Each structure stands twice: as C-alpha cells, then as structure tokens.
C-alpha cells in the first residue's frame, strides 16, 4: 500500500463487535416501534393539514386563474395585466398560490410560462433579466407529452441558430423563445415585492412594459403591506404600465385555525395539552410566523412524545399491544395517574382487582389498552362537543363565535365546564325566542347525523313538541317568548318614603309562552348535560400521560431560543458552564466577589468589566482593570496577550467597536438584558 498514492477505502462488511453496545436497552428497545407509530400517525395528519391549507385559498387561486385567462384573451395595449396578491406579513401563502397556479398551467389549454423572481435573484437590472431569461429558456413549457419535450430541449440548446448572437440579458432571447414555442403568456411572479429595491422594480416594470407589444407578459405581485406602499415606491411610468387587480388570501389566523381543525379531525392518537397549545398559538399571534412553522411545531411535539416517551408505544396498533416488553409495563405502574387510580380502587375496596394489575403484566397491558382507547374516545367526544358549542354560538344572535383553537385550549385545561362562557351561553338559550330555538334544534340534529356530534336524548321528541306548540298559536306570527327574556320584564320604580325602589315585574305571559319556557328548560338542561358529560378534565383521565402531550420546554428551547441571552449569561457566569473547581466556591454571599476571578476565562473577565463601564470605554483604563483582576502572577506580556484576545473576541461578538469620537476609546454597542 505504501507505493500507492491513493487507494479506495473498503470497509469490512460487518461492523466490529464493539458497536453492539449501542444497541438499545430497557425502555429504548421500543424505539423502533414508536418511530413506526409516529410515521404512521404523522403522515395522516400531514396529509390532512396539506389538504386544508390547499383548500383554504382555492377561491383565490380560482380568481387569479380567471384573471390570467382573461388577460390572454383581451389584451390591453401598453399595460401589463397584474395580479396583486395581498398575503399578509408572513408571506408564506404567496408561493403556495404561485405553485397552485403553476399546477393549473400544466393542464391549462394555453401555453404559458411561469417565472418567479425574488429579491435575491439579482441586485441590478442586468442580473435580474439574466435570471429571468435563464429560467424562461430552461423551463419546459406547459405541454404534457414527453417526446415533444425532448425535441424542445434540443431546440433550446442552440437558440437562434440563425441571426446574431445576443447578450444574455437581452429580452430578444425571451421573445425568440416565446415565438418558437408559441407561448401565449409569460407570467412573472415577484415573490417578495417589498424586498426589491424600489428603483430596480420600477425599471424592470418599465422595461417589461416596453416589450409588452412583443412578449405577452403578465405579472403577479405578492404584497405584504399595502398597495399604496407599492405605488409610493414605483415610478410614475411604472405605475402607468400596470393594470392591476387585487386578490386577497386567507388571514394567517384562519390558516392556523384550519391546521388546528385538521389536527382534531383526523383520528389522532396523541392530543396536545393546553399549555403547549396556548404557547404555540400565542407565538403565532404575537410574531410574524408562517403557518408552516406552526405545523412544524405540531410535528415536533408529536415527535418528541413518540421519541422520548417510551410509553407512547401503547398508542400503536391494538393487536401489537400484547408483546410490549415487560419493563414498559413496570414503567406504567410508576405513572401518576395509575397511582391515583390504584388509590381509588383501594378506597372502593377492590383490592383484588388492584392486586391483579400490580402482579400480572398481561392484565395491566389489557387495562392500558382499554383505558387508552377510552381516554382517546373521551377526548374526541370533547372536541365534538366544542363543535356543538360553536354551532350554538353561531345560531344565537349577538353571541360572538369563539375560535376552535381557543375553545380547545380551555377545554384541555379542564376549565371550560365552569367558565363564564358556558354559563352565558346557557343563559342566552334560556332567553331565546322560539324561531331561533327551533333552527338550533334542527341544526343540532343534522350535525349529529352528519358528524356524530353528541346530542340530547329524545331530540326528535323535543322538536315535535316545540313545533306542536308553535302550530297551536297560529293566529300570531310573533315567535314565542321565554319567561326569562328581558323583554318580558319591566322595571318598575316606586318612591316609598323618599326612597326609590326598583322592582322587576313580569309581564303577563300567555299559556303557550309558559309551556315554551318549560320546554326550553328541558332543552337547556339537556345541553348542560352534554357539556357536563363530555367536557372532562384530561388530567383526570387515567394514563393521560400516554395520549396527552403537554411539555412546553422542548418547544420553547427549539423554536424560540435566546441566542443573545445565552451568550450574555455564559460570559457573565462561566462557572455554570465550565463546572471547574477553581471558581466553584462562589456560592451565596461570596457570589458577587467570585464573579471576578483570575481563574475565569479572560473574555468573561473583560466582559464583566465591560458591563460596569459607560458607553465609551477608555482602552487604557480597561487594560489596567483587567491587569488588576488577573493579578501580578503572570508576565505582563502574557496578560497583554490575553487582554488583546479577549478584546478581539468581544469585538467579534459585536459588543464593542472602535469609535471615531476618541481614538483611544472603544464604543460599547450592546447593553445587557435586551
């Protein structure tokens, strides 16, 4: 081998025996299986989410498509047909729409090309045009036949075999391409319109306007702010060159709702807890975060449950449950919810049952299987009940409809059942007139048959009784009023001994109205029963640790890290990270003194000195302070080296910079705690 300069490394086919130590042990053995479960579960949910998100903007895509179709047919001379898509600040839906439009182009009957330009495509007109032309001429046009495509590619290899060579930013190239392929529309999408330089954008629009008579252009702009803002930034000639139409896409909050609903609708085995969910929703509301990141957060939550929680293996297919390893069953016995369950059994004097669960693994496996299945049913029934709440809210007048996600968060925290929202809702039903109540009841039944939402027992009977009652008072078209309706009470003021007394007086109610109130009472108590039986507190369910995931910290660590805080903290308290013996003594009272020690890294020492100084720091003072901290032990040259390195590192971290105000000073750029 020595005479060879290069040889191919061929590893042994078998791995060395040492590697086997990595083989999973204990609870880790089920990892492979949990991963399979996760893959199965998430693929279904991903599909559901994708379908929802695609569907949400279907009408917008349709409108854009019709606009483009119309632009092909009747051209306005000198003006480029322009679709302006208002995407909102996160701008994540814009490319989605362009993608769906591109899908349509593939099947559409006109030949078009869709080219997308982003602000990173080029910083000047030449580069932008180059990208545009390269994209256009290398892209296949909207035909489906493969053989034809191959022919076209051959043609493309030497564009303009006749005629002079052209510069690669000459739109003549695009014109020739368009003519050769009989393209009927060249659609240019500007992905992030705001990020473009205003002058550049005007210039390219003016240029496209010049060529509009030879190349059939159409533009699509994704706009995050407003049309006025775009117009402000464009030149007058560019504005004149555009004939626009506005398209609006769904709000990001609506998108988040859709993702949530997709999550609940699929028969998910894992439910996200209220704390995690509310954190995720809050971030979505407070910051510019795209909906994709929300879906990613959900996926991450799912992943961390299945990958880190060994007991999630019980969420697999039921048939597989019986061969789960014994140490998993032992782990189940340690669960908090199992312990409460055992306590309850003891209180009920069912010692034998408990003993069986404690001793027999098989019995416990069966118990887990049953209870997990039951718990999941409970939770899906709860989500169905949330739908009923929304339905009731929709039907009642003057009642705001709560979003599904907020209801879910409340329900998962177990606080919905006694909440003012539910109480107010029930009171409103009690006051509702008959016409509203009847539609509500009908919708409840329809919902029940369609989506299997929970409903009141003898719903049909109740409805017929209501209808009979309404029938019986044919002579008046007014709907029946409830006794609790505030319209039926009048406020009476009486003055007794110079004191005003207010008293409520019920106006006279007809016989029908009284009956109606009675029926309403049945209805409200029925609905109340639905709520009471279905809105359970998930933490009361046994084995909820297995099918409810509610850990905030992994999400926070991964999705919202704090880089600046981390650096500041590491520099301020290096001991926490280094865990060395030399500066470990700093505990309690001595902590303040211990923060400045010669044993600490030089950068940390310098950083603490930096924190103590003002916005302009004299380099010589800093050096002297540094030298004082490090002590006289070392050589001065050595200390100077450390000082200079520390200074350079702080500068590299962006904490200070040289200043022109004073030559021998450095400027402090970053303040702590921001």
């Amino acid at each position: 081998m020595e005479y060879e300069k290069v040889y191919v490394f061929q590893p042994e086919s078998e791995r060395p025996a040492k590697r086997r130590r990595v083989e999973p042990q204990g609870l880790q053995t089920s990892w492979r299986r949990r991963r399979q479960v996760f893959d199965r579960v998430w693929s279904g949910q991903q599909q559901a989410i994708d379908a929802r998100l695609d569907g949400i903007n279907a009408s917008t895509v349709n409108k854009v498509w019709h606009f483009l179709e119309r632009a092909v047919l009747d051209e306005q001379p000198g003006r480029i047909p322009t679709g302006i898509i208002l995407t909102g600040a996160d701008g994540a839906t814009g490319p989605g729409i362009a993608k769906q439009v591109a899908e349509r182009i593939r099947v559409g009957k006109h030949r078009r090309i869709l080219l997308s330009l982003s602000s990173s495509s080029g910083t000047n007109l030449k580069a932008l045009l180059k990208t545009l032309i390269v994209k256009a001429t290398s892209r296949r046009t909207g035909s489906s036949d493969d053989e034809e495509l191959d022919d076209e590619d051959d043609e493309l290899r030497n564009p303009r075999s006749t005629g002079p060579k052209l510069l690669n930013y000459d739109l003549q190239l695009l014109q020739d391409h368009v003519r050769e392929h009989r393209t009927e529309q060249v659609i240019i999408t500007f992905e992030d319109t705001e990020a473009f330089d205003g002058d550049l954008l005007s210039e390219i629009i003016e240029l496209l306007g010049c060529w509009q008579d030879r190349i059939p252009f159409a533009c699509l702009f994704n706009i995050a702010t407003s049309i006025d803002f775009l117009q402000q930034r464009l030149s007058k000639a560019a504005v004149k060159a555009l004939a626009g139409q506005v398209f609006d896409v769904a709000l990001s909050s609506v998108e988040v709702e859709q993702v949530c609903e997709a999550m609940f609708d699929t028969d998910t085995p894992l439910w996200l807890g209220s704390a995690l969910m509310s954190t995720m929703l809050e971030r979505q509301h407070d910051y510019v975060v795209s909906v994709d990141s929300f879906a990613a957060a959900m996926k991450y939550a799912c992943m961390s449950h299945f990958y880190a929680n060994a007991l999630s293996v019980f969420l697999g297919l039921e048939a597989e449950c019986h061969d789960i390893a014994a140490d998993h069953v032992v782990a189940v016995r340690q669960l908090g919810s199992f312990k409460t369950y055992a306590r309850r059994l003891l209180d009920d004097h069912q010692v034998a049952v408990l003993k069986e669960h404690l001793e027999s693994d098989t019995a416990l496996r069966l118990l887990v299987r049953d209870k997990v299945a039951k718990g999941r049913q409970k939770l899906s029934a709860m989500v169905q009940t949330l739908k009923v709440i929304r339905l009731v809210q929709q039907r009642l007048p003057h009642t705001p409809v709560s979003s599904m996600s907020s209801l879910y968060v409340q329900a998962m925290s177990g606080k919905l059942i006694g909440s003012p929202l539910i109480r107010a809702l029930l009171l409103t039903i009690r006051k509702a007139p008959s016409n509203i109540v009847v539609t509500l009841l009908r919708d409840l039944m329809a919902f029940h048959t369609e989506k299997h939402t929970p409903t009141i027992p003898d719903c049909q009977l109740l409805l017929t009784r209501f209808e009979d009652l309404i029938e019986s008072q044919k002579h008046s078209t007014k709907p029946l009023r409830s006794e609790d309706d505030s319209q039926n009470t009048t406020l009476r003021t009486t003055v007794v001994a110079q004191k005003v007394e207010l008293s409520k007086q019920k106006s006279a109610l007809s016989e029908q109205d009284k009956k109606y109130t009675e029926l309403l009472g049945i209805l409200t108590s029925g609905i109340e029963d639905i709520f009471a039986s279905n809105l359970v507190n998930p933490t009361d369910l046994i084995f909820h640790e297995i099918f409810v995931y509610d850990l905030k910290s992994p999400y926070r660590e991964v999705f919202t890290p704090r880089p600046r805080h981390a650096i500041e903290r590491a520099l301020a308290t290096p001991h926490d990270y280094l865990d060395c013996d030399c500066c470990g003594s700093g505990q309690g009272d001595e902590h303040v003194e211990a923060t400045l020690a010669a044993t600490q890294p030089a950068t940390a020492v310098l950083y603490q000195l930096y924190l103590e100084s003002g916005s302009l720091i004299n380099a010589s003072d800093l050096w002297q302070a540094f030298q004082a901290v490090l002590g006289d032990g070392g050589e001065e040259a050595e200390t100077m080296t450390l000082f200079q390195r520390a200074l350079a590192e702080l500068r590299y971290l962006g904490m200070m910079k040289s200043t022109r105000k004073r030559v021998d000073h450095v400027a402090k750029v970053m303040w702590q705690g921001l």
Partner: protein
Amino acid sequence: MGEQLLLPDELLLMLSEKWTCRDQQLRQLRTLVSHDRINLVQPKLHVQATTPSTVVVYGPCATGKSRVIQAYLESHVTKFAIVNCRECITGRHLFERTVAAVAASLWNDKPEANRNDTYNERCENLAALVVHLQKLLKMHEKFVLVFDGVDKQRESAPTLLPALARLGEYVSGLITIMIVQHPPPRFLHQSGVPYIHFPAYTRAQSVHILSRNPPDIFLELPTDVPDYDAEVHAEDKPWLWPRYCAAIWDSLAQNAARDLVSFRALCIKLWRPFVAPILAGDFGTRDFSRLLVAQRRLFQDETVLLDSIIASPTLAPPTAPSQDKPSKSSSAHELPYYAKYLLLAAYLASFNPAKTDALYFMKSTERKRRKKGGGTARSGGRVSQKRQVPRHLLGAAAFTLDRVLSVLHAILPDDLRGTVDVYTLVATLTSLKLLVRGGGLGAGDALEAGGKWKVGAAVSWEYVQGLARSVDFGLSDYVAE
C-alpha cells in the same frame, strides 16, 4: 436647390393629414433628411450634399417625435434602422442592437437564401461600432440611423452622445437622427447640428387630435327610443366628445395632464361616468351644458389625476357590483402584536432625539415625567429664535438596534422574552422595508456591530397613529415635541 428636387407634396400632405398639427416639423424633416425613393426613379439627382450627418429631434414626451419620424422614414427612405434606447440595458447592448438593426434592415429585402451569412460579430465598444457600420454600409450611399430616446440610455458613457453624433463623419452616407426630450445646450459638443423642435400641443391642437376618433356614447343602442339608430349615434358622438374634451382640458388637464397621452387617458377615464346620465335617459345627447352642470363633480375631483395600479372603484363601470369587497377585507391583514410594538418603538427611536430618552422611557414615576411640561422661568412665554419644524415632518433619524430594543422594552405593557423571534421580526420588517438599514459606518453589512436602522418611508405619523390605536397605546405621551 430646386423645388422639383423635393418630394411630391401629395406624399407630405398625406403624412401631415395623418399626423395632424405636425406640419411644420414634417417640412423641416423633408428639408433635412431628403427622400431617396425619388432617387430610384430619377437616379441622377443627388441631394446628399444638402443632408447634414446628424439631426437632433427634441420635444417633451407625447409630442409624436418617434411616430412622425418613423412614418416619414417609412414613406420616404428605403434604408433606415430605428434603435429604441429604452430597451437597451447597457451601452454595449445599444451597440449590439444597433449593428443587429442595421444588418436586419440591409438584409430585409434580399432573398432568404442569403440570410445564412448573417452578420454575426461582437460589438463591444464605440470603435467597433464604427468599424462594423463602415463594413456594413460600404455598398450603400445613404442610410438613416435613428436613436430613439438616446438621452435616457442606461449605463451610458459620457462620451456616448457626442460620439454617436460624429458617426456620420466616419461612415459615409450615414445620417444619424437622435430623438431626445430636453437636450441641454451643446450636449453634442458640436456646432451646426440642425434641431427639429416638436413643441407640446396647444389646447386647440390637443382637442382637435382627440376629436378625430370619438368613443361611443351608447355601448348598445337604446331600444326604447324608436328613431335613434346608429347613424344618429355616429353624428352625436363627434358633436359631444370635442366639447367634453375641451371641458376636461379647462378644468383638469391644462394644469396637470398637458401631454397628449395623459390627456387622452384622463378623457377616456371620465367618459363613461360622464355619459352615464345620458344612458340613464336623464339627458339627451345634445344637452351638453345641462349635462356639464349636472356632472360638475367629475370635473372637480382631482384624485383622478393620480395614476394607480388598480382602477379606482368609483369610476369603474357599474357592471361589477362587488367592487368594495376586496378593499374592505384587505385591511384585515394586520401585523402581529409585537411587530406593531416594534414599529412603534422604531418610530419613537427615529423621531425622538436620543438625549430625551431618559425623560420619556425611564420607568420612573408619573410625577417626574410630568415635570417636563413646567419648564423654567427662562423658557416661558418667549418665542424661540430658531424656527422649529415639527419633528414628525422631518426625515427619520437613524438609531442603533439596542436603542430600539430598549425603547421596545420600555413601552411594552408587559415583559418581553427576548427570543430569536424578536430578531426575526427585525429582519422581516427590514425585508418589508418598514425598517431600513442606513446611516453610520458599514450600513450595508447586517452583522456589523452597532449598525443603524431607520423607519421606512411608509411608516408615517398617520400610519403609526393607526398602529398605536390598534394596540391601545398612548403614543402622544412618548413623542417628543
């Protein structure tokens, strides 16, 4: 130069009928760039001696420069090429296109077989252009080369224009016509170049040109009036339209849309709303004065003068009833909570002087902050010598990132966890141009320590007030006046 050498007047008459009001310019053109179609018939008569090698055609936009020249050349000259300089991205692009255009026009009338040996060579600079033109035009006695809008050429060298003006000295038989808008004096560094001026159209001329093709009053002829047929309609149109155009000119266009294109656009824009009462049957087609009074609102509304990408909904044809729907929902795309606060903080950092920060943003007691209103004995009553412009009317000042973050912490009603989301927010707002990098050293580098930001042009006082209202934030308490 005998009169019979010039082209037949009929041809010129025909042209000046088509390009009305450009009589004088056509005559000038005829004198300067003489015909050679006649020469084909009478080859002995040479007029080259009278043609200057460069002609400058100038005038404001929309005065028919390019079109008149093109029409003239098409009818009078056999060999010519027009290069539209607005389509050329660089100076080199201009040269390449010039060579290509000249070659194309020379090979235009040859049989197809000869086209294989197309002129396929590079043309990097002016010197090469001269050589190429010499080579190409060797066999030709006369060639007219037009540079349209050459003063608007991008990335042009300062010597480009004088050099192009001198092309005729090196290439025999070449006449260069330069179409420019407003030539500065001596911009060609050459004397004796003839200029043809295309002045802006006057009121009478504008109205006259526009009245040549009046648009329809009725899109579909009315069925309820029995004797109103297409013929009457064709008579009514040219009666009403010029009067309407004159009214538009007097009310709006003479001040703000004087050039023909925008005048025409304005007339067409307002035409449908103007004739709407006629369509509705309230007025007859000849009731111009009454119609004018009834529709005077149209002539007072100056917003129509602003161009916009979206056709303004009020003037759109009434066939589309759902016009107001998109504008209503478009406002619903709001910025997220912290983005609003960050913009507010950025605005405050931009428009408050840094030295007053301690006054406005210190978490001190209300009492202390109130004190700023009191002032000292010296400041009371007397008007300041320096004239103070309200701060929000001036441009935004640059601030460092840490300053805006501190302001953000100070104005937020609750604590902010300084996660990466805040920095992402800064980056997002920067890409939306609501914040812009700028000012100070290293403005281009995002990683430069102590880099500065400004609020973008879109973040005006009104916009920020709207933001503050939406998050219920007392903006005026924090703005330094």
